[in-house]
């Protein structure tokens, strides 16, 4: 096992700079997820850690040893690729034992390790099959088996679940997390799926346009996004964002959007006339059929109109139109809504997120 440190790492293809001076420290045994939209440079970063991509400038350290010039075969890492990258002409057993075969490890130990990995991953019955005779999920498990028999210092996952169907993805998510808890190997996991990031990571690193925007534990990022981008990227359904102007009436500041007047937290650092983005997560919007009697603000918000109702079982997502804006609210109470009905929404002021209208940075 090893810690990974990235210092001032840059990557440039010709004139195009894809990574801008990245700094990142991954502690030994941690599960770190690199999260970002397509093209943000997360896979490039992972491939540079793996040694598959040349470093333009900056350094990569494994346990304080600089590995910039160390060939990937000598880094003692294991990688799981998005499209599995299995050796098509080898059986599952040979795929898994390949790295040990290259090192001339005793055949008996090879067999033991393959048996151990296949029992963990439930591949016992498929050891003598070729990859083409397996389903997507099974292939994915073979790719993981090939990685875990290595007993590597660092595990690298490059969007390993994106080719699987929804149900299998949830199942494999749990398996990967369980595996990490058992093996406690440092893991770097790349994904664009924020749910994967939230559910699996010890630490989430959010990237955009080749830069690290924010990093921290999943709940830290969820509760305190440092920018509008992070706020919108994390959470499903996403945070409601309304572009507002700050106004003051009778000594009370509010965020106004057209006819809509939204209450602001008392400690909000905003000035009258400032343009802001007003963010509130769906679960922090209380929906009522009648105007709320015990509102935590002196402001009453005009009622919205219900558009779509999505019951998911444990909770109900209500999408409504509020002063021309689409707003989603989540309630765990079983209130029956019907489209066209009036809905009274009240934000929980403790969970309101405000972002500067210009810089989009959290206020």
């Amino acid at each position, binding site marked *: 096992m090893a810690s990974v440190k990235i210092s001032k790492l840059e990557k440039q293809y010709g004139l195009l700079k894809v990574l801008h001076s990245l700094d990142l420290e991954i502690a030994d045994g941690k599960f770190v997820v690199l999260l970002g939209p397509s093209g943000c440079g997360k896979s490039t970063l992972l491939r540079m850690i*793996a*040694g*598959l991509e040349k470093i333009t400038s900056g350094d990569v350290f494994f346990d304080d040893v600089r590995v910039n010039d160390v*060939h*990937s*075969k*000598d*880094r003692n*890492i*294991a*990688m799981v*690729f998005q*499209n*599995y*990258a*299995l*050796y*098509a*002409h080898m059986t599952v057993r040979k795929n898994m034992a*390949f*790295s040990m075969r*290259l*090192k001339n490890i005793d055949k008996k130990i090879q067999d033991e390790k393959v048996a151990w990995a296949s029992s963990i991953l439930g591949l016992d019955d498929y050891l003598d099959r070729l990859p083409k005779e397996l389903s997507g999920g099974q292939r994915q498990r073979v790719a993981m088996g*090939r990685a875990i028999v*290595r007993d590597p210092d660092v595990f690298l996952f490059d969007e390993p679940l994106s080719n699987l169907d929804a149900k299998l993805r949830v199942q494999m998510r749990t398996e990967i997390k369980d595996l990490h808890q058992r093996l406690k190997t440092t893991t770097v996991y790349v994904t664009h799926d924020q749910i994967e990031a939230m559910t699996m990571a010890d630490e989430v690193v959010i990237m955009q346009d080749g830069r690290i925007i924010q990093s921290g534990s999943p709940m830290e990022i969820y509760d305190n996004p440092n920018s509008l981008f992070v706020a919108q990227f994390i959470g499903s359904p996403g945070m409601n964002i309304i572009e507002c102007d700050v106004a003051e009436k009778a000594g009370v500041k509010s965020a106004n959007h057209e006819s809509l007047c939204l209450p602001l937290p008392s400690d909000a650092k905003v000035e009258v006339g400032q343009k802001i983005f007003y963010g509130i997560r769906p679960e922090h919007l209380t929906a009522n059929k009648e105007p709320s009697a015990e509102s935590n603000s002196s402001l009453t918000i005009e009622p919205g109109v219900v558009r779509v109702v999505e019951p998911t079982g444990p909770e109900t997502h209500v999408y409504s139109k509020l002063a021309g804006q689409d707003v989603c609210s989540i309630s765990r109470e079983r209130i029956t809504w019907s489209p066209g009905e009036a809905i009274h929404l009240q934000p929980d002021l403790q969970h309101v997120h405000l972002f500067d209208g210009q810089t989009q940075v959290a206020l």
Partner: protein
Amino acid sequence: MAAQAKSGGLPRWLTSEHPLPWLFPVTSLLIVFGLYPVLYSLWLSFYKRNPATRTEKFLPSFNWNKLIGDDRVWDAVQVTFTYAVIALSIQLVLGMLIALLLDSDRKGFGVFRALMTLPLVVPPAVTGMMFLLMYDSSFGVISNSLYALNLLSPDKPILGTGSTALWGVIVADVWQWTPFMVLIMLAGLRALPREPFEAASIDGASSIQSFFFLTLPMMSKIIALAVLVRGIDLFRIFDYVKVMTDSGPGTATETLTAYAGTVYFKSANFSYASTVALATLILVLVVSTVFIKIFKIRF
């Protein structure tokens, strides 16, 4: 009404909706230049020709019996096999090595890849004459270089000595046809997926291990196909032998087709020449069928 107007009263099998009119041109060419000559040689092979009287007599087993008892045929089979196996092995290994060298996205490699095709556009007979000149014992650049290096002496000219003549012809074949192998191998190499090689590199494989454990097995079908195509071609070798050695010295470079040519053009024994040619065809069919079965090639 409309359908009738469109077809202009022609029977349906002559209209453009029917496959027959579309197949007609190529089918007729194949029948005239492919099937007819084969059937005609088969028919010829059943006749005994008397060169003196220039008459033919129907004796189905005569030529075939003669073929089996003809030592020159068996010599020619041996020369053909030797020639094909050696030339094919060299072209295959050399083709793969050059393809590996040229399999790069770096600047300038595209030019090299294009230049590789140049020998392929030279007519084989011209290649033969080119090498004939280069082998010439008084002014040939290859001969003179070998003499200078003391590898060969002027009293044993390359194409005039039994032990080296076949090699001389093989070199010309290799020069002309290795680029063909390179092209096929390059196409195969360029189409290989990148990820398994990255996975192997992470698994700890060196470039040489990657080549033997991944590249070769992943290319096996393409290699087999290239060997098949070139192999069939090599069994039909005629031009180089005819131009460079005319089967000599003696019969040292006499391949099956060269022997058939000699029987046909020099002895004017058309029926026996046809029999030898058919024997070549049968040999090619048997060898390639066995090869296809062993390497499970699917077309």
